[in-house]
């Protein structure tokens, strides 16, 4: 082997060994220093998990971790970049192979210029070169696993295990929202059920019936405790809103349509009566007037003159087109306004941005915007009106067409128009019922609101009151003052005396003073629920004593039992007596119903006439609701 090649070989081997030595040193340094940041991380993680540190504290601890990390990086960098002896690799090779520095010396002497080399140097070089083939840098500088690797691995495993550990933080969860159903007393439920039943019976308009059904469903849901307070108010709000919106829009649209018709029909003397009725929204009168006009046209005698007929024709024609024209007018105005608005916006854009826009232009734009909105609303009304009046318009147009040709046919058209007005009148009735439902809904909402303020106590009182109002004695326990009948224990109270008990007979109640020192022989009267058991002790009885008349005398005479029964005249006792009786027995009975109706009518009249604050109104109405007659 040539000396230069041999030296190159030696140098390569030495370099490789040097690199390995450096790598080994770096690895060793890494494993030596890595436990520092790892240990710190383990410590911090343990603190975080064990002490459940908050985010700010955690951040502080982690930031402090920069110090061990920097120490680690500095140490590793130093191991990596420290300048090492150029003979590091060759010395390692010599030491491993036991060459007594023959390789290193050869490399060292090879750097001496050839001229300056001594024979012994040359011999040393050749000696080293001869060893080149046997060099094994890999074995000479093994990159073994550093001793500290175990510690590093243990720390890494610990870190992983710690990071996987779940930190159980005990957070106080808010209690689940409890469902508190909206409670309404059974008496009030009955009241609103009755209202729904009544409205359903009165109504034949499908829309109104749907609304009533929704109301009824709401009442049933409340009765079944399926809704909480929030849901009840939500449902009521939705129902009220739906009713109100359609109601107002339809009514306004119809009024507009009718006024338009009235304006045109007023121009003819023949249709003036109908026009006047339509203008005043007296639909029944308008129907009647139109029917009369139709009759007039049918008759051959006393028929209107041609001029009158022509005027009527014109009026009918114009009336039939009034709604359409109104809608067209609104549309036209709207289009013009839109054009104007567009041109104004264009002008605003073309103005210099620096100069700013003039305040007049802005004002005009805003005004136009408002007017457009107004026209949109009007258009909506006109369209609704056109829709509602479409049939009537058609009939009137047909009547106008037929008037000059065939008066009879025209009269028939007018009669059909009158029928359509009748339909509208019926619709108005349905609207009134919707209004009624709306009113009931408002009452119900107010009632709920008031009950919400009263709390459970009020609810209990109401339930008790409801029972008493229905004449129930409270689960048949015969509480004092609730029973009726003779022979009560204490006779100071007055109780009505009921005469006549046979089948088909009429009972007459006469209030009589009852001795307090009675025997307490109350018998079940059977006319009240829960009173079938005779009460004992201090409680009053509530029925008749079979021995009331005492033991039958055994007279040796022929007698015939006669039952005397009075005729039901409906007159009954005085109102005060009826009311007094109702306070004792509950709000039942025909007499009470009559008295109640009288009073309520007066009250309603007063409420509608006088200016009474809405809060008071509620109390008055509520009072009458509570004392209403029960079945």
């Amino acid at each position: 082997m040539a000396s230069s090649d041999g030296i190159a070989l030696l140098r390569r081997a030495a370099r490789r060994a040097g690199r390995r030595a450096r790598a080994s040193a770096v690895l060793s340094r890494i494993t030596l220093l890595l436990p520092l940041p790892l240990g710190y991380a383990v410590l911090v993680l343990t603190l975080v998990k064990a002490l459940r540190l908050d985010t700010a504290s955690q951040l502080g601890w982690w930031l402090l971790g920069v110090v061990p990390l920097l120490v680690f990086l500095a140490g590793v960098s130093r191991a990596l970049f420290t300048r090492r002896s150029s003979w590091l690799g060759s010395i390692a090779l010599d030491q491993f192979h036991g060459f007594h520095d023959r390789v290193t010396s050869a490399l060292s002497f090879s750097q001496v210029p050839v001229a300056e080399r001594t024979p012994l140097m040359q011999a040393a070089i050749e000696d080293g070169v001869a060893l080149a083939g046997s060099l094994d840098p890999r074995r000479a500088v093994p990159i073994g696993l550093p001793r500290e690797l175990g510690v590093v691995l243990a720390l890494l495993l610990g870190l992983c295990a710690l990071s996987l550990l779940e930190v159980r933080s005990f957070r106080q969860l808010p209690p689940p929202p409890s469902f508190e159903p909206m409670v309404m007393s059974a008496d009030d439920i009955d009241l609103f059920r009755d209202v729904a039943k009544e409205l359903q019976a009165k109504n034949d308009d499908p829309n109104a019936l749907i609304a009533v059904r929704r109301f009824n469903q709401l009442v049933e849901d409340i009765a079944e405790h399926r809704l909480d307070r929030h849901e009840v108010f939500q449902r009521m709000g939705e129902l009220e809103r739906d009713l109100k919106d359609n109601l107002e829009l339809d009514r306004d649209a119809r009024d507009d349509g009718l006024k338009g018709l009235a304006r045109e029909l007023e121009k003819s003397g023949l249709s003036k009566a109908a026009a006047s009725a339509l203008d005043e929204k007296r639909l029944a009168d308008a129907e009647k007037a139109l029917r009369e006009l139709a009759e007039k046209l049918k008759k051959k005698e006393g028929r209107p003159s041609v001029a009158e007929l022509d005027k009527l024709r014109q009026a009918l024609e114009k009336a039939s087109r009034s709604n359409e024209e109104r809608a067209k007018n609104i549309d036209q105005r709207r289009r013009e306004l839109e054009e104007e608005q567009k041109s104004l916006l264009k002008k605003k854009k073309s103005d210099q941005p620096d100069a700013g826009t003039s305040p007049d232009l802005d004002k005009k734009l805003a005004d136009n915007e408002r007017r457009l909105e107004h026209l949109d609303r009007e258009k909506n009304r006109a369209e609704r009106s056109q829709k509602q009046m479409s049939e009537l318009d058609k009939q009137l147009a047909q009547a106008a067409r037929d008037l000059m040709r065939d008066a009879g046919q025209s009269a028939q058209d007018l009669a059909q128009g009158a029928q359509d007005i009748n339909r509208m009148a019926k619709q108005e009735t349905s609207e009134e019922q919707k209004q009624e439902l709306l009113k009931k809904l408002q009452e119900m909402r107010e009632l709920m609101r008031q009950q919400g303020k009263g709390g459970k106590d009020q609810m209990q009182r109401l339930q008790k009151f409801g029972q008493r109002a229905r004449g129930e004695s409270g689960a048949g326990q015969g509480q004092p003052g609730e029973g009726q009948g003779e022979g009560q224990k204490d006779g100071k109270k007055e109780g009505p005396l009921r005469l006549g008990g046979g089948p088909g007979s009429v009972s007459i109640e006469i209030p009589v003073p009852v001795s307090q020192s009675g025997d307490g022989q109350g018998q079940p009267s059977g006319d009240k629920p829960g009173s079938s058991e005779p009460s004992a002790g201090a409680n009053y009885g509530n029925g008749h004593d079979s021995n009331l008349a005492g033991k039958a005398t055994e007279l040796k005479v022929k007698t015939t039992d006669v039952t005397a029964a009075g005729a039901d005249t409906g007159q009954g006792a005085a109102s005060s007596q009826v009311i007094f009786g109702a306070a004792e027995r509950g709000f039942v009975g025909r007499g009470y119903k009559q008295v109640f109706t009288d009073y309520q009518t007066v009250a309603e009249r007063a409420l509608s006439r006088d200016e009474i604050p809405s809060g008071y109104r509620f109390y008055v109405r509520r009072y009458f609701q509570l004392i209403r007659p029960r079945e």
Partner: protein
Amino acid sequence: MTEAEQAREEVAEFQKRIGALREEIGRVIVGNRDVIDGVLSCMLGSSHALLEGVPGLGKTMLVRTLAGVLGLDFSRIQFTPDLMPADIIGTVVLEEGAGGARQLEFRRGPIFANIVLADEVNRATPKTQSALLEAMQEHRVTVGRTTHVIEEPYFVLATQNPLEMEGTYPLPEAQLDRFFYKLQVPFPSRDELHAIIDRTTTAQHVEVKRVLTRQQILEMQALVRRVPVARHVQDYAIRVLMATHPSGEEAPELVKRFVRTGASPRGAQAMLLGAKVRALFDGRFAASIDDVKATALAALRHRVLLSFEGEAEGVAADRVIDEILKKLPGSKE
């Protein structure tokens, strides 16, 4: 034949001669291979050795044998307190010539030999010791106005008894530094003792024969000087030397604590020369770090001066040097 091949042959011849030398000495001296190599190293390094050991370990025998196999003049000086410098150097005497003329003539002392054994050198007064050491250093003696050159090769072997300190004059540090090596003669092992007894208590008498000529010795000494030392080896020797100083950059804790003064540059010279000799002993062409390590103890132990604390603690210089060699890596990072 190229110069390299010639050099290779020279080294081989050196090795052969050393082999013969060792073999011949080994016929008389039992064991003590390190001491023999040490002595030979000193001689081939053109320097002197201090042998330390208890009496009866064959120190004088070794020197005598060496002188015998080398065929060189040998003189033995038993140092005593009353020994005067003139006793070893020689003196000028008045002599009467054949014609009756009288003249001053210098009579050479025992120091004028190729191999001088200065037995128990620490028993002489410093003045006498100084005279010896001056001759050792300069290889010449000046008496009056005349300088007398000592014939080469010149090799002084001094011995001292470490036990008997009473009535002795321990060599001052500066003079100790003149010795190339300080060799400690160990007590022989059991087997070695058997061999010693066998050889010395029977009728057999071993006559050593001369193995090398004066010229050959000089050639060998010259070859030693020609052995190259790579920079890293020299650097290592210097680092070891500097580590013996408490203020040295790489001085271990033991040095900092127990050493008063480190070795002089002669220590590095001794280590490297000794390393060269060892390389040649092994047939190598250049000294190595291992050679330096092997010679460090003998070359430095008498040059490292312990502090009072070190002496009080009973710390030996050998321990300090061992510590340095152990801690000092082969190459500085």
